[in-house]
């Protein structure tokens, strides 16, 4: 069923809340933390107004929020939660338990840096820290993508070949609190698209006794981990199938990543999240000057589409891989490290640099992205070589 486009305006947090309203999940345990607090707030209001019949569980910490979400999911419910930053950090133990128990939980993550120094602004250190927890991670450039991605999350998570939790990420404040134009989709086609959740196995199934999360001896544990890893590989196909179906309803195109003027680009910036909107303006400005600039915007980080990205970048002369997250590894950030490895495997010989930007909400202007492209043109000519990965806009 195709949906009409409903043109309106709202913030990224409102957009996710609207997605939750259309999905009407069974259970949402949550604990408030800036900048994601508005999401459970909006949901609680919708429940109070009788718009949805989700069971909201106010809990005393994020550890409990994740535990309750996991418990609800294991019991057979469609369960979601929302958090940010140290809230996600406090869920750590349960993130792994949820994923390894193969529970299709969906989380709205509003990206905010981890302390310290203490700061409330956008950074990817929260979700990037959890990148190896076995969750699918999908990132959003703006309110529209936060909404569209959230609508697709349950279909991916609950697919029989996947059965993994999904976090839908957007940049704290930059998109979560910015009111912008957005196109919403009608309730009926969305309800039909998301569908009812009918799990095959669950704790409250009367005629099937089962355990969730028991001890596994070393003789079995490794096979479980391989099965989990295989599910992440399977997710690649499912993510594209779900995106295709979403496109049929809405006309919106989604994949592992977006290529913006990348096809003939000599110089490419690879980035995640809201900075990609700013980078598109920079690309357009440089194209007007005859510089072949392009952007690769990463949407899906887990599973990591390394091979596909490397192929898309194959003809570039120089590439900047942008990280909004320090790894303190003395080897660059997480996107830098993983994409560099993928470029090597695909024998991409372009000059490449990992750039640290936007930490703790440091503002990134169009001119800043232009500066990165300027580095790339110099790198391609052999006029510039970084001995350490650079910090964009760092003050002396």
């Amino acid at each position, binding site marked *: 069923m195709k949906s009409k486009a409903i043109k309106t305006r709202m913030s990224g947090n409102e957009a996710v809340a609207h997605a939750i309203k259309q999905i009407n999940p069974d259970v949402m345990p949550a604990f408030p933390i800036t900048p994601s607090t508005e999401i459970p707030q909006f949901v609680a209001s919708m429940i109070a107004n009788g718009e949805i019949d989700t069971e909201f569980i106010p809990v005393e910490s994020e550890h409990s929020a994740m535990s309750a979400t996991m418990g609800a999911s294991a019991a057979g419910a469609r369960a979601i939660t929302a958090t940010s930053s140290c809230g996600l950090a406090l869920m750590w133990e349960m993130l792994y338990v949820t994923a390894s128990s193969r529970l299709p939980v969906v989380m709205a993550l509003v990206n905010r840096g981890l302390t310290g120094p203490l700061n409330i602004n956008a950074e990817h250190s929260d979700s990037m820290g959890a990148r190896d927890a076995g969750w699918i991670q999908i990132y959003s450039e703006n309110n529209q993508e936060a909404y569209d991605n959230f609508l697709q999350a349950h279909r991916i998570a609950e697919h029989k070949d996947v059965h993994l939790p999904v976090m839908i990420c957007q940049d704290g404040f930059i998109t979560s609190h910015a*009111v912008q134009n957005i196109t919403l989709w009608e309730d009926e086609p969305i309800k039909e698209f998301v569908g009812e959740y009918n799990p095959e196995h669950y704790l409250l199934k009367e005629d099937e006794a089962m355990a969730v999360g028991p001890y596994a001896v070393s003789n079995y544990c490794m096979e479980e981990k391989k099965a989990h890893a295989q599910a992440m590989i399977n997710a690649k196909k499912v993510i594209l199938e779900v995106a295709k179906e979403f496109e049929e309803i809405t006309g919106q195109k989604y994949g592992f990543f977006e290529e913006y003027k990348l096809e003939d680009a000599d110089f490419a910036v690879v980035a995640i999240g809201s900075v990609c909107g700013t980078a598109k303006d920079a690309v357009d400005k440089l194209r007007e000057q005859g510089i072949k600039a392009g952007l690769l915007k990463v949407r899906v980080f887990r599973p990591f589409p390394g091979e596909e990205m490397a192929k898309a970048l194959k003809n570039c002369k120089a590439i900047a891989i942008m990280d909004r997250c320090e790894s303190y590894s003395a080897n660059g950030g997480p996107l830098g490290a993983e994409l560099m490895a993928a470029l090597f495997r695909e024998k991409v010989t372009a000059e490449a640099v990992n750039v640290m930007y936007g930490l703790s909400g440091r503002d990134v202007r169009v001119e800043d992205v232009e500066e990165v492209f300027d580095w790339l043109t110099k790198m391609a000519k052999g006029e510039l070589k970084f001995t350490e990965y650079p910090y964009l806009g760092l003050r002396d």
Partner: protein
Amino acid sequence: MSQLTEIRWHGRGGQGAKTAALLLADVAFQSGKFVQGFPEYGPERMGAPITAYDRISDTEIRVHSNIYEPDFVAVVDDTLLHTVDVTAGLKKEGAILINTEKSADEILPLLNGYEGKVFLINAYHVCMETLGKYFPNTPMLAAMVKVSKVMDTDVFLKEMETSLQHKFARKPEVLEGNMKALKLALGEVVQCR
């Protein structure tokens, strides 16, 4: 009007500068524009200086940075003129709008040599006449629409009435007071240079 109008709001936490920015984005959307309204969060607390921004455009807005060279600046609290460089980057062809009970002679020397147009409004007076309480964001919103010309003032009033009717369906007196404040503010903005 140029294709993109950028506005920066300066206020103090609790005065509604963020709300005014979001309301302006909202009403500009109603008039068919692409909009972006967002706050810049620091250590937010009552009384601390805060900044909020609006982009209003005829085409899609993709950039997500703060605004460094605004077309217009709104100052919700004139005590900020002593502590914040409110005219930083403000375009000469643009204008600054300041909420104050002071005279132009007192305000003009505080603008760090800004050479563009200066508008003053006494939002306290407007609020007391119409609302009986001090909510400077309401008159400032109307005044900014008039100063920036991002939309026709009649269209603005009509859209505000529709949106306030919806918001205060059960409190018609609030609607009436706010509409009076908006109309009075449109008349009370004074260009002093």
